[in-house]
């Protein structure tokens, strides 16, 4: 693991993504320490353009958009990470079970996975979000995670079932190791890089899903996320008012976060699947 990390540092793509992401995380963690104001406090007139005091102007309610943006990035990252953890964990468990045990259970789980790959996850996302009355950002994140595991499950299953009959796994079986131990010591290390990559992608897609669902007005309550800022801008017709600062920075922030995550993923992909490197 240590040596793969050292190789990763040499990948400019991975480093670009990781540094951008870390810079953003640093900003959203540190800035609120200096500016302790409430992002929801109305301190100016509606849609004031950016100036020295309000770095990104104000929104429809005269709130400081820069502060809102900082908190929005924070929520979006949180939601993305939690969703990524859930999606990866569920996908990993289902994929490992299905790929390692095989037989009927494999057939069943593969069928379920395939069915949920085809049913658009955002449809389920909308239906669940509509049905749940009080959505915290954590609940939203969990819902996103729960609806986006099939991809990971499918990839993990494919990897696991190809590993299942390798010699080292058979030796472990003959040696009488328990199934959980074989999975942990003989299977997981071989798919670890895939799982990490899947987690990075799931986090990116979690952030995008949160933004989409918030745009629809189904985002978390009592918080600010990048999607919610965009939703406010749209509902209160910021584009028509010419208030680009109300949605462009949020839009670019989403793109920056997902782009840096994709870059990290590509960097890892080039290192762990050398065929792509050409």
């Amino acid at each position, binding site marked *: 693991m240590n040596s793969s990390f050292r190789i990763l540092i040499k990948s400019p793509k991975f480093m670009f993504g990781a540094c951008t992401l870390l810079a953003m995380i640093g900003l959203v963690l540190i800035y609120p320490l200096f500016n302790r104001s409430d992002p929801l406090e109305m301190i100016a007139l509606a849609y004031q353009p950016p100036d020295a005091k309000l770095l990104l102007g104000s929104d429809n309610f005269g709130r400081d958009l820069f502060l809102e943006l900082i908190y929005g990035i924070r929520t979006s990252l949180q939601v993305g990470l939690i969703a990524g953890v859930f999606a990866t964990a569920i996908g990993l468990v289902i994929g490992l079970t299905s790929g390692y045990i095989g037989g009927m259970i494999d057939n069943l789980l593969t069928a379920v996975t395939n069915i949920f790959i*085809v049913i*658009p996850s955002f449809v389920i996302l*909308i239906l669940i979000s509509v049905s749940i009355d009080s959505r915290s950002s954590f609940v939203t994140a969990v819902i996103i995670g729960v609806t986006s595991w099939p991809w990971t499950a499918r990839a993990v299953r494919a990897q696991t079932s190809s590993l299942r009959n390798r010699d080292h796994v058979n030796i472990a079986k003959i040696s009488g190791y328990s199934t959980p131990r074989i999975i942990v010591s003989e299977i997981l290390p071989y798919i670890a890089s895939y799982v990490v990559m899947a987690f990075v992608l799931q986090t990116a897609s979690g952030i995008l899903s949160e933004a989409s669902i918030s745009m629809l007005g189904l985002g978390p309550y009592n918080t600010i996320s990048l999607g919610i800022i965009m939703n406010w801008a749209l509902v209160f017709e910021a584009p028509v008012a010419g208030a680009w600062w109300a949605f*462009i920075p949020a839009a670019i922030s*989403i793109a920056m976060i997902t782009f840096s995550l994709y870059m990290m993923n590509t960097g890892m992909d080039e290192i762990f699947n050398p065929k792509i490197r050409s």
Partner: protein
Amino acid sequence: MSVYGKYIVKKFFWYFLTLVIAVGLNFLLPRMIEGNPVSMIVSEMTQGMTDSDTIKRVYETFLIEFGIDKPLGEQFLIYVKNLLSGNLGTSFGLYPKPVTEILASAVPWTIGLQLPAILVGWLLGNILGAVAAYRKGVFDKVIFPVALFVNSIPFFTLAIIMLYVFALSLNWFPLHGGYDYQLVPSLSWEFFASVIRHHTLPFLSIVLVTIGGQAIGMREMSIYELNSDYVLYSKLLGIRDSRIARYVFRNAMLPQITGLALSIGTMVGGSLICEIVFSYPGIGTWMFTAIRQLDYPLISGCTLLIAIAVLLANFTIDIIYGWIDPRIKAAQMEDQ
């Protein structure tokens, strides 16, 4: 029965099962709302109404439609029966308009926007990805990060930016809607031109984002194919590069077709939100309205329609794929 026929039957069975599950979820999830959803919904929707007769009438309509007083199994039967007779219930927001009527008015707009946009974006993205893989060098170094960046922009983000730049600042295109509101929909040139002008921006924003995602996938597939043994062998037998490029393109394209099938759900979702930005009179905008008004029948009508459309698209792609990829045909033979 032929091998291909069996393949179709098998696929049909799976998609039918998936459809049943999608319908089940569509029925079940909204009923998880705590308490009596009908009274909750009606109380929310009739806020401000004073006429108790109307409230009672509304309440009764939904009580019958939901069959809330009956056991869940029976509710499901009522739901399926209504579904089969093409009845998706009555909209709360536009009471007493039936949901099917609203959806019927929106479907042509959505299909007219998304089908060409996704297909064009898919095709252009694949060509671009293949060229990037083949040319390498500067072209690849520029195209790839740009595609990756575009791909990380959510659909609606690009839509909002385009709306702001091209419709608002430059005034090149109209701000919202599917056509000029002064016009009455008709088969005139004027109306047609207006539709095209309103169509352009949402169309372009969907195309651009789709290109990004597809180009990345195709680039990867092409690089994989370019490194494969048959490329080397063909080269060593003196086959010219342009012909080998055609082999590679074709072989990398085939998985991209299944890729299209699998990502079409996400694309449709993104495009629906794109509609909202442009207030395009399609399903997405209606869903937005429905969510704001908590118009449950309309919401679940939209989700059901989207699920069915995506399943149908997937089924079609699977059928086409089975028909064109000889590897699939051979796999079917082995199955026998």
